């Protein structure tokens, strides 16, 4: 069996893409806070009633909140969780942690990256700078080791974190599944290298030459991508630069109350549900 994905059948529906996720899977979600997250994918996880998911992301917000709200999460590994802007804390996430419905592995963003790097580099753990005096290593049982080359220094080492699936929302893919994003890649690159497989939603399907003309713009080569789906406004209600900004009224409506009818209305009003989404 090949270690890469070479196929002409990668372009599938969002429903079929999400059907690849088994209950209990660990998912690294791309983007940061309300920016270029794979949010249509996240909502489809809820529609398909996935359960016991482990969510891995340095700075989740809307995604972890809505998944906690829907009862889809068992564990989260994160560095900072908030809705940002004027919205503050993520209320359903907060309730899930305080009630112990969801287990938290608290990280600094860079320790989560270190764990992903260990996996990407094919080593069991990864040194991470800083962390002196922090209570975080203690609650996670992380170890500090002496420099084996006798510099006299020591460093915290973070065990490898290998997500089952990295889920990325991109600006563009080509038919083979090459992936391009504009602006910062957040942590998408290391997520794609550390996970066992990669699933992608993208705003646009573009011609091959867009990628071959500027290959250095490609974030993830096609052979790492198992399948993709074209979902316009797939990062809604977040931003996807330069296509669209955050839809603040939609976030506000979502935050209005935790009544189930509000969540239902939010899921119903999402672009991928309105039929505008499939190119």
């Amino acid at each position, binding site marked *: 069996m090949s270690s890469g994905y070479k196929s002409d059948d990668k372009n599938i529906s969002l429903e079929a893409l999400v059907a690849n996720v088994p209950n209990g899977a660990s998912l690294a979600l791309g983007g*940061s*806070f*309300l*920016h270029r997250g794979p949010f249509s994918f996240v909502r489809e996880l809820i529609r398909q009633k996935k359960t016991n998911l482990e969510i891995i992301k*340095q*700075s989740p917000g809307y995604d972890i909140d809505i998944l906690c709200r829907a009862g889809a999460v068992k564990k989260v590994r*994160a*560095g*900072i*969780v*908030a809705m*940002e*802007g*004027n919205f503050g*804390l*993520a209320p359903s*996430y*907060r309730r899930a*942690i*305080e009630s*112990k419905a969801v287990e*938290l592995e*608290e*990280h*600094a*963003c*860079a*320790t989560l*990256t270190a764990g992903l790097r260990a996996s990407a580099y094919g080593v069991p753990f990864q040194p*991470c*700078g*800083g*962390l*002196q*005096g*922090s*209570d*975080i290593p203690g*609650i996670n049982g992380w170890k500090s080791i002496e420099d084996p080359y006798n510099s006299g220094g020591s460093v915290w080492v973070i065990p490898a974190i290998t997500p089952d699936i990295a889920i990325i929302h991109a600006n563009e893919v080509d038919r083979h599944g090459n992936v391009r994003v504009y*602006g*910062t*890649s*957040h*942590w998408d*690159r*290391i997520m794609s290298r550390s996970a066992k497989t990669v699933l992608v939603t993208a705003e646009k399907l573009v011609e091959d030459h867009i990628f071959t003309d500027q290959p250095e713009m490609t974030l993830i080569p096609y052979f790492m991508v198992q399948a993709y789906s074209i979902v316009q406004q797939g990062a809604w209600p977040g*931003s996807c*630069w*330069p296509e669209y*900004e*955050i839809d*603040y009224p939609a976030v506000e409506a979502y935050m209005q109350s935790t009544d189930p009818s509000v969540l239902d209305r939010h899921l119903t009003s999402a672009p991928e549900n309105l039929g505008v989404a499939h190119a």
Partner: protein
Amino acid sequence: MLNSWSPFSYIVTNLARFIRPNEITFSGVNSSMPMLACLLAKRAYEWDYIYINVAGGVDPEPTMIPLSSSDPMLAVKTASIFDNEDFYDLCTRGRMDLTFLGAAQIDGEGSANNSVIGDWHSPKVRLPGGGGGAVMLPTAKRACTWRTEHSRRTLVDKLDFRTSWGGFHGVVTPIAVFQKRADRLALESWHPEVTLEEVIERTGFTFDASHAKPTDYPTASEKAALQSLDPDGQFERDAAVSIRMAAQAAP
């Protein structure tokens, strides 16, 4: 009054005053006030500095000021994308001159709790978490923070949980500016409309105030820069900072 501070302008402007010429200075997620401080420093001062941010921007020229401090707007007109892994690595290898980091509780040594109120394993309130703090606070050359509430529950003798250690260089609240002096936060200056006694009364840790004086009022260019960043006062209204909270009567 010829010159005055609003609580909002006090925090933003005094954060900006920690920025130094030509230094690498970073603003991150969930950090509207440091973002405004960084943009203010670019407009208010005669010198320049190297501004990098969590949107990947390097000396960006945003065409509007975003609500989210990680908005892609903060990478408009950037000539490079310096992404998340890049700025953390820059910091851990000792090349981050100044970073702004949030904090829910701050103690007298300038360590931060961003994690929980109460016991970590049975939290009364689960807070957002420290983001980069635990790695950046001990490795940045200087780190500064801000708190919109100055009280004994935010400026504490003992943290509920030590998310990040390393000692803030500067802390700005609506009524005071602290700066590290001999490994503890010392009072640098206080809001001219409150008294030193009130700052002491409302601070949970003990501090040296021997060098402190009332904070200098904003300069004309600092005021003009902030006005240009928040022309209709939306950020100021959203931040809703006051010198005293409802429960804190003037002494």
